[in-house]
């Protein structure tokens, strides 16, 4: 079946739509659960992780990669959860984290600012001015976050398969449209697309595990053949090789694992 990602602004009824789609299709509905899982799995304070994936990186953080580390943990937790398919994810940047997977249906839900402000006022019992300011700040942060980390604008419609404006199209209509589209054959997992998903999850998991031990690496996987590229040399590279060898028995799904040193271009086959 399919993986559905719903990109949405706060208070734009995206959450309600995601839950209804999940109920209608009998799928799991994910959002905050991913933060909890990442926090639990990689032993990071939940609040730090939440802040890292919500706020755009500062100038200093763009040099120190402080935020990108947390994002790696988050992406690993997300890919682990969605690899089994039949999932509706309405959290942050699903269409980017899971990019390249053909059975991924990318939906963006937008709604009128005045309606979002009204929803926020009703839910949190605050003034119109405060509600508007919070929503606009939130939108700005999210836009900045994606632009600074991935160089794309989340408001660019070409990133999605469907963009639905909730106004004349009601929540129920949107749910019907999404359920219908998710049933199309191209959004059903094939052996190739499932393999791609498994490879992505595997690469993310290995990267997160190595990052947890302060190795700055990039990881790719193709049919379980994993390539770890690192800038390490000498003793550090040796340590990385040793750790990588252990990973073969720790992480399931690895057929072959290679460590490439980008600094020396030397290749070590494990």
């Amino acid at each position, binding site marked *: 079946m399919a993986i559905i990602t719903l990109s949405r602004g706060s208070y734009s009824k995206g959450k309600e739509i995601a839950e209804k789609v999940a109920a209608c299709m009998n799928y799991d509905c994910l959002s905050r659960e991913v933060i909890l899982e990442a926090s639990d799995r990689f032993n990071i304070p939940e609040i730090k992780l939440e802040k890292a994936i919500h706020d755009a990186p500062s100038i200093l953080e763009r040099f120190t990669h402080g935020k990108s580390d947390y994002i790696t943990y988050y992406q690993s937790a997300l890919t682990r959860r969605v690899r089994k398919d039949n999932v509706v994810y309405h959290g942050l940047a699903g269409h980017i984290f899971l990019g390249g997977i*053909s059975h991924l*249906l990318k939906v*963006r839900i*937008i709604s*009128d600012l005045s309606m979002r402000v009204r929803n926020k006022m009703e839910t949190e019992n605050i003034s119109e001015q405060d509600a508007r300011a919070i929503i606009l700040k939130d939108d700005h942060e999210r836009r900045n976050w994606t632009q600074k980390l991935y160089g794309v604008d989340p*408001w660019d*419609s*070409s990133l*999605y*398969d*469907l*963009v*639905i*404006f909730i*106004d*004349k*199209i*009601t929540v129920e*209509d949107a749910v*019907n*449209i999404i359920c*219908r*589209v998710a049933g*199309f054959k*191209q*959004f059903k997992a094939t052996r190739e697309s499932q393999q791609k998903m498994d490879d992505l999850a595997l690469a993310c998991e290995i990267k997160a595990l190595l990052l947890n031990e302060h190795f700055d690496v990039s990881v790719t996987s193709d049919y379980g053949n994993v390539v770890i590229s690192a800038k390490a040399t000498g003793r550090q590279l040796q340590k990385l090789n040793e750790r990588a060898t252990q990973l073969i028995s720790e992480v399931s799904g690895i057929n072959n694992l290679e460590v490439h040193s980008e600094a020396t271009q030397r290749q070590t086959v494990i």
Partner: protein
Amino acid sequence: MSIINISSDVYEEGRKIAQKTAEAMGYAYVGREILRGVAEKYHLSETKLVDAIDKAAPTLRMSLKLRKQLMAYIQEAVLGEMLKDNIVCQGLAAHLYVLGVSHVLKVRILIDPEERARNYAQTHNMSVKKAEKLLAREKKLRQQWSFSEFRFDETDPSKYDLMVSLSQIDPDEAVRIITETVCSRKFQPMNYSEKCLKDLELAARVRVLLMDKYPSSRVQANGGNLIIETLGLTREKRKREAAIKELAENIPGVNYVEVHFIHDFFRQAAESFR
């Protein structure tokens, strides 16, 4: 009993989907064929009208002023067709000027940018990279034009009810999504939405009439009552008001005309130096 307005980054793709939608719904298809009638009525070339819709950058052949005039003629014709109801309109830039009418379903068909660049490169015999650059420039120019002329960015997703990307979804499936969506109760015409459309059509007709003499005029209609805003010098005020009223009051459907005069500071300043 609705109107479906389809726009697309690529005219041909939008046309295919619009024609199939019209066929599936039993609606009339209103496309660029109506431009022939406009060209005959105003003694223009049909190609120029197509260029006014498609070409983003001003050229020697097509100044901004001429484009504005041609768009006014197209608007008049399209809104006239829309009054007939049960139509699928495509390729006439109606998404830019048919706003605030609740029984119009506004759909944008998105084409995968990479695929579009590849096709463009193949057709125009150039590298994909160059095609990407050209298309990005064209997109930017169109955004600027729609913003200056219609006061919004045509790529803004909040200006559409639904956007469907053809990168994963087949055209036939897109047609099914559109036909199912338009059946929603919210896209059925109401007295108010029909009135809004009639007002837009009346305003477009008046604007065409004023276009030659007063090209900077803006027209708003409300049930036969018109508010016309025009730029000019204070000394011309009374004469111009009278002339505009005389022109507008002769149009069928107009009950009352109010002319709002906007002082033209730039012309005033330019004339004071003479």
